[in-house]
């Protein structure tokens, strides 16, 4: 019996090595190739960290970067303002609506972004009419896009605490509903709110479909445009954007893990 187990362990180790090496090459090769490709022109990387010169040489790219940062920040704010009070309110006062809210929040998962764009085009005709065609108006669509992820993060945070008891305790001490939400419940779901905001930023920085088809600009749209004129530069910017998104998401998943471990 001991011999069988030892042999199985050896087999498993060999299997593990084969899988890790083969898939490791598959996953790392494109990243390595991006490094090599973007380094073919020695001017590329110095230019990328020199913002004044970059915005001079590639004004479209600079516009895209600024637009994406704006969209990411605004979407995170709008998502939090819309979702956090609603999620708390529904739990406290409208428990019957909880399933409806959950359903609506998860609905965008079954509607591909390309389909959403088809339906959003007429809605955005009105948005353009009232608010102009600035790229920041994409925030409305992006908030819908991040709803499923943000909702799950916030809902998990709310499930982990006893919202009702907290609310009743503070109400009995004379707090109004806004105080309950902002000063009692919110601080208790800080980490959930933070991870929802992180996910939002990462998703918005990677969005291309809606921005390009509604004729607005952001980072991804400008990278795609750049790819037509300067391949090296576009690969370098892709790599930089990718590393930023990796860092954001890795930070998020490690933070989430250490929170679970410390419990």
């Amino acid at each position: 019996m001991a011999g069988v187990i030892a042999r199985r362990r050896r087999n498993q180790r060999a299997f593990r090595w084969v899988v890790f090496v083969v898939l490791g090459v598959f996953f790392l090769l494109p990243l390595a190739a991006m490094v090599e490709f973007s380094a073919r022109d020695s001017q590329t990387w110095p230019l990328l960290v020199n913002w004044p010169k970059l915005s001079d040489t590639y004004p479209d790219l600079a516009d895209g970067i600024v637009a994406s940062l704006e969209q990411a920040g605004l979407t995170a704010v709008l998502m939090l303002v819309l979702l956090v009070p609603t999620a708390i309110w529904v739990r406290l006062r409208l428990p019957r609506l909880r399933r409806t809210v959950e359903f609506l929040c998860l609905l965008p998962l079954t509607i591909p972004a390309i389909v959403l764009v088809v339906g959003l085009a007429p809605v955005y005709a009105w948005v353009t009419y009232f608010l102009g065609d600035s790229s920041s108006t994409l925030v409305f669509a992006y908030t819908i896009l991040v709803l499923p992820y943000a909702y799950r993060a916030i809902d998990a945070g709310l499930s982990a605490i006893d919202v009702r008891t907290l609310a009743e305790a503070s109400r009995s001490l004379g707090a109004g509903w806004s105080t309950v939400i902002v000063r009692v419940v919110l601080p208790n779901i800080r980490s959930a709110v933070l991870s929802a905001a992180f996910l939002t930023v990462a998703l918005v920085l990677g969005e291309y479909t809606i921005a390009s088809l509604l004729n607005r600009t952001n980072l991804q749209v400008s990278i795609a445009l750049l790819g037509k004129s300067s391949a090296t530069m576009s690969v370098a910017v892709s790599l930089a954007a990718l590393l930023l998104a990796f860092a954001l998401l890795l930070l998020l998943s490690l933070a989430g893990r250490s929170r679970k471990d410390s419990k």
Partner: protein
Amino acid sequence: MPEKALAAPRRKPRGTALLGAVPFFGYVAIFLIVPTLVVVIGAFAGTDGAVSSANVEALTNGYLLDAFGRSIVLSAVSALVGAVLGALLAYALVTASGLVRRIATSAAGVLAQFGGVTLAFAFLATIGLSGFVTVWLHDHLSIDLYANGVWLFELPGLILVYTYFQIPLMVIVFLPALDGVRPQWREATESLGGSTWQYWTRVAGPLLAPAFLGSTLLLFANAFSAYATAAALVSQGSPIIPLQIRGALTSEVVLGQQNVGKAMALGMVVVVAVVMGLYSLLERRTAKWLG
């Protein structure tokens, strides 16, 4: 008990409580429900505003049917390849040490989100016409990757690129099922004289089958609704349905064809909804067997 605590607010008029949910429902109505209705109603609206099935019938046109077929082939093949390789990787992670597993699952979480323009450019830098691997193979082994035509911008290339985000997604969704397999089951098989082959085909295989099928369906839906990667990679022609929708949105539309884009969009929603429905059925079975 909570029921009693609920009684106090319930005596108040419900209207004020409902007011608190108005901003959320209003917002979702404008930016999610209205667009969905635009697609559904538009798909059945004729040019004169009357109800018509012409748009949906247009889907059976040769080139649109082909695009749907290619979309399904692309999603199915990339889902199958991703599911098999992802399951192998997930199994390797289950047998690995805790640290390796933690790093790999974090990386999978990140890579599963990696799609779109940047992924397309990553593959252009790798096996594009002047990509790293293409050039290296040509210079060192004198192998021409594209001797039989440039396949990167066609279906085989899309399948390869999609696999890059399908494998990590499979790892994420399949790992919990593998964790549900108890070592005692293997020990029981062995103590009854079963071989490794019998264990996998008679015990673990059937137990994991619903989870594997369900995950594959999820991967299918994921590939089917992907747009950005294909859009950045394929600039000429519209081999798959999301790119056909791009064409319908951006180019001058033929008179009487304005709503065909909406019919295509509706078709995509129907496919995704059916696949996701099957997925949740299988998910329930998985929860029962491996929960």
